């Protein structure tokens, strides 16, 4: 700190020789190079710094945690000190992926008020939930004797029981002799068997989901036809004949069903035939059908590029697969697809309405007090909490409109509601209503930015009003409209609260668009990335184990929303430069 230079405070200005003797006169302060209030400027800079640190820190947290989920971690085996009771069921060793090391919180003080020395503990992801009953384990550092990295440790992703971490012991294929775990044949054979199992699983799924599903659909359609014939108001004359035809068809279907079910049963039996016996890192011996294993890696043998490859594979699986095991395993494809379909439907609904209303307000309505009020009100509607729109959507779309549609067109399947319950159509309608003010406001701004000159030029050339709007005004304001639409999409994609009321579910068995006629099923419930986060984090049986999944999903949602918003901001900045509009 240099004490030399004078400042405001340090200028008591001692009497200088040429000061007049007037006591009321105070000499002017010496000119200072230190402007007043600089500390305050620094203080205000704190606000911006905190804001930036907050947002960048949060994004960094989400990205690092979200991506770390897919990066293979080494498997360690922990040797405990002699006589330690901290192992799993008294075992001297255990193992898993190291999650974190943390200082154990010591709050107790000794007699002098001094804290006890700090202690550290490790958290391990031990997996093998079926064997242990838990998947995370904390262990005191004092209890640990040594930590080794067994090279042949296998991390296997299983179909229904979650991840397993183990050392191989013996593979017992159905068709050939047993292969011990240390044989060079072991890994290639295991790979081959896992692949064969996956193929059989696909076939079973094909049979059960698609072929048997198709039969079931036809059977329930026949059932409805039969009900219509039996209980209908005026049965046609040929009712008995048609009933007989229905019965015959149902019998054929039943026979087909039996055949398919037998084939599925046979495949399932084959699935259980190859077995693998293994030892968990805590020494427990277990046997599992090989077909239970979906995929496996040997993380301790992977180099950087091997890990990178594994990372990409896992990420792709996360994007493309369906969730398993109460959403805690597998991928999130249905949630991505549901979010996509809902946002798309919402955009389709919101754009024409928003643009139409904006054109009316800006081009047709008489600019006066009324339009000003409407404009303020529309603006404020964007600030109304989303949950209020959800409440409206439930009351109006689901119960009133949906209920009426059911009464009119689906009365045969009542009391099971078809449209009278939440679904992707009502969800998009609700969100469209919620985001329509966003589109109106930004479209209006864009329309206002089109210069008077180009309008009048068009009119002067003899174009009609609509032609002017269609050919001159709308194209010029297209980027603005697009900005509004993107902002609306970003808001719609990230919103969860109203969806909880109008049709989002934790697990939808079918997608809103698929290969079954009529292909687009607007009445179906759907999955959503945002709700997936809520559900995994708060309603799953083990929120600690679900955390990686939640972070990964969060990463994806943030990526989507931030990209949309950045797009909107870029377009807007571009527009601003083009038109130099002061308010936006």
């Amino acid at each position, binding site marked *: 700190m240099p004490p030399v*230079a004078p*400042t405001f405070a340090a200028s008591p200005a001692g009497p200088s020789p040429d000061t007049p003797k007037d006591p009321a006169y105070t000499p002017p302060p010496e000119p200072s190079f230190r*402007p*007043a*209030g*600089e*500390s*305050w*400027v*620094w*203080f*205000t*800079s*704190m*606000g*911006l710094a*905190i*804001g*930036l*640190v*907050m*947002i960048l820190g*949060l994004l960094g*947290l989400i990205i690092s945690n979200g991506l770390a989920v897919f990066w293979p971690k080494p498997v360690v085996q922990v040797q405990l000190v002699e006589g330690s009771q901290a192992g799993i069921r008294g075992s001297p060793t255990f193992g898993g992926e190291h999650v974190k090391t943390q200082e154990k*919180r010591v*709050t*107790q*003080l000794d007699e002098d*008020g001094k*804290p006890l020395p700090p202690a550290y503990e490790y958290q391990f992801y031990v997996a093998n939930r079926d064997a242990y009953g838990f998947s995370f384990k904390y262990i005191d550092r004092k209890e640990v004797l040594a930590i080794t990295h067994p090279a042949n440790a296998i991390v296997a992703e299983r179909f229904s029981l979650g991840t397993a971490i183990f050392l191989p012991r013996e593979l017992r294929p159905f068709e050939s002799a047993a292969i011990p775990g240390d044989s060079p044949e072991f890994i290639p054979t295991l790979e081959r068997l896992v692949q064969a199992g996956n193929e059989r699983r696909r076939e079973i799924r094909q049979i059960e989901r698609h072929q048997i599903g198709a039969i079931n659909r036809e059977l329930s359609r026949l059932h409805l036809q039969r009900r219509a014939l039996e209980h209908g108001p005026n049965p046609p004359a040929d009712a008995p004949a048609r009933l007989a035809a229905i019965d015959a068809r149902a019998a054929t279907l039943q026979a087909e069903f039996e055949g398919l079910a037998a084939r599925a049963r046979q495949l399932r039996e084959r699935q259980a035939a190859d077995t693998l016996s293994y030892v968990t890192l805590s020494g427990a011996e277990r046997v599992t059908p090989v077909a239970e294993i979906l995929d496996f890696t040997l993380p301790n043998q992977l180099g950087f590029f091997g890990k990178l490859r594994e990372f990409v594979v896992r990420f792709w699986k996360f994007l493309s697969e369906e969730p398993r095991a109460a959403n805690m395993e597998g991928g999130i494809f249905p949630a991505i697809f549901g979010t996509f379909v809902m946002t798309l439907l919402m955009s389709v609904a919101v754009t024409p309405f928003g643009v*139409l*209303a904006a*054109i*009316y307000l800006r081009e*047709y309505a008489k600019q006066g007090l009324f339009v000003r009020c*409407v404009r*303020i*009100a529309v603006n*404020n509607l964007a*600030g109304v*909490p*989303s*949950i*209020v729109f959800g*409440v409206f959507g439930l*009351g*109006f779309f689901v119960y009133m409109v949906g209920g009426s549609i059911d009464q009119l067109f689906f009365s045969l399947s009542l009391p099971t509601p078809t449209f009278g319950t939440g679904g992707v159509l009502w969800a998009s309608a609700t969100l469209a*209503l919620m985001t329509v003010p966003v589109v109106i406001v930004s479209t209006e701004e864009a329309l206002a930015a089109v210069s008077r000159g180009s309008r009048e030029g068009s009119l002067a050339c003899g174009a*009609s009003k*609509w*032609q002017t709007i269609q050919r001159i005004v709308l194209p010029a304001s297209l980027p603005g409209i697009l900005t509004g639409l993107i902002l609306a999409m970003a808001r719609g994609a*990230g919103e*969860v*609260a109203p969806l*909880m009321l109008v049709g989002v579910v934790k697990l939808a068995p079918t997608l809103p668009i698929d290969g079954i006629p009529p292909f687009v099923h607007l009445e179906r419930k759907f999955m959503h990335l945002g709700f997936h986060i809520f559900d995994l*984090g*708060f309603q799953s049986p083990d929120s600690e184990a679900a955390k990686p999944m939640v972070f990964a999903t969060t990463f994806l*949602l943030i990526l989507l*929303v931030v990209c949309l918003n950045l797009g909107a901001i870029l377009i807007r900045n571009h527009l601003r430069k083009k038109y130099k509009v*002061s308010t936006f």
Partner: protein
Amino acid sequence: MPKDPQSDIPARFRVAKTTLLVDRFMNQFIKIGGLSIIVAVFAIFVFILAQVIPLFRDAKVEELKAVQLDAAEYAILGIDEWSELPFALRTDGEFLFADVIGERGLTRKSLPFVTEHGFGAAHYNQLAQRVAIGTRNGKFALVDLHYRPVHAPGGGRSITADPRPGPLYDIGRPGAPITHIAYADAGARKLAVVKQEPAENGGPVELHAVSLTQRRGLVGGGQISVDRSFDLTPLVPGTIDRFLVPAQADAVVVATTEGEIIYLFRQGDRFVVRQTFRPFPESPGPLSTFNFVFGDVTLVVGDQAGSLKGYSLYLAPGAEQRLFGHTKTFPAQKAPGTVFANSVRNKAFVVGSGSHADLLFSTTEDRRWGKSFDFAVTHAVIGGKYDRMVFLDDKHVLHFYRLDDPHPEASFRAFFGKLWYEGSPAPRFDWQSTGGSDDFEPKLSLVPLIFGSLKGTFYALVFAVPIALLAAIYTSQFLKPEIKTVVKPVMEIMASLPSVVLGFLAALWLAPIVETRVPSILLLVTLVPFSAFALGYLWTHASPRVRVLIPHGWEFLVFIPVLLGVGYAAWQMGPALERLLFVVTDPSTGARVADFRLWWPTVTGTPFEQRNSLVVGFMMGFAVIPIIFTISEDALSNVPQSLRSGSLALGASRWQTAFRIVLPTASAGIFSALMIGLGRAVGETMIVVMATGNTPIMEWNIFSGMRTLAANIAVELPEAPHHGTLYRTLFLGAMVLFLLTFLVNTLAEILRQRLRSRFRSVE
């Protein structure tokens, strides 16, 4: 076409017909379409209002049918749970069932034992559909009515009844006529109480009770037999008038002809007087009304002048037993109530006197309906589903009414006022919409929810406003314009973070961290502003050679590493501070521990929860900061350049210009930014749902949670039955939210427009 305006234009200049047609069509289409979209958007409010209005409607009652019964005296009036076959019991022991839906007319069924022993008194339990009848010779029997729906072969359904008397039990003084009876069955405990005429040789009116036990059979219930007899006469001072046995079968509440109430409670094998009180000390004399409301916790008493009060059992602070206390005052009746019937679905009851009847609701003390008939009411009963009412008049006509009152619990007072709920020691605001038992009293006060919304908003704003405003001032006044084009979008990205993500991070990431590090956060909050000032001071006093290293507009970049350093230091120093200041003796182990989580409840007496307002406030900051920042930054930037230039030219420093010139000019805009930020925080749903415990408490404690209006809707609406009271109440909550945010935003918008016009006049 002579009228065509284009007819005098040369053909080559004429506009094509299709163009005109399209133009006309589009004009109309846009006008109608645009207007209707705007109308549709505002119909949201109308729709929500339409869902709410039925809450505030009174009960609607209309007469469906009148049936003439025999000219006889009637002891009780009852009705089945489908409200199709009401009955009246004649004092000679004959049941009259009146089919009010079908065409069966009257059916009769007499009880032989009544003819044999004589009719003394009867008591009707509507929930169990059981009548207890006492005879003229000191015996009583339980008669099960056996109401059953019978499905006819051709479709359709009718209700039949088959009263079947159980065995006769002896009670009280053998052979003495029973003049009043009450019976309650609480499963293992059954209690019958009778009043008997005094003995012929004089003496008082006697009160006797017997408890019954049921031997457990292998299948179903076994034989019921008398377990123990009690003579309650000595316990009651004065002349016994009437008495009630609550459904728990553990007490007898006796009213004397002097207007005193004695609360007898069973303790082991004897009864003790637990409480004696006089509900109307100013008017002695027998009580006109003396009955329980459904649930048998609230006693409705009326005096001879027509006043009506409610006494509820509750545990007063410091008391050891639940005693009756005055909790309700109902609208006064024109005449003393002589007829009473309570609903077995909710807390409603009918009080009748002469030709007038009122339907009252106990929780809200509300009068749901009232009517003066052209007949005198002698008996009344409310249907089991609270959808029918039956009155019997003195001309022996049975009047069958439809009762349409879907939302009796709702009233303005129930939503916004304090109510004295059953079992509570004082009136309070409370939200608890569903409960475990049938006689649960829904508590629908929106006040704790509004309070929760305001609490969350308050803590969010406390955190967000300083940061957002400082950042806005810095960005608009001091930051280099080139950096601004980068910084502003980054801050705006913050606004786009989905609230479910913020909520998840708040609950599963932040809350566990904050829980153990509160002292660190205290340090952080004090050290960071201090470090900003200190850095500013240092820089001000640095030599110009040092100062040129940091050009104007780059201060924030220098501050970021300082911020991180100070933050890290504060984080690490927190436990030390904790050991210094927040030491407390752990009550469970007796050891001295330095733990803020224990220290806070011990010192302040308020709880410390992991998911608390601090966490919510911080995370809501992410949602609110960018809004306040963007709008106030706009307002500050739009202050005419001429003002700033003038100030700077006169020698003011950049801070003086910003603080004395720009800030006051833009104050309206900043205020409107705060309002819009407030609107966002009030309606925030997911963060609150996830990061608080969602308990509707009313305290400002920063280390406890809250339940906000929005979170409440999200949690309860998916489960609320369509068009039920809860459903509509949640819509009311949504309407309150809508109005609140809409008004706040409108105010902000008007302010902003004013500001804009003011700037225009300055320029």
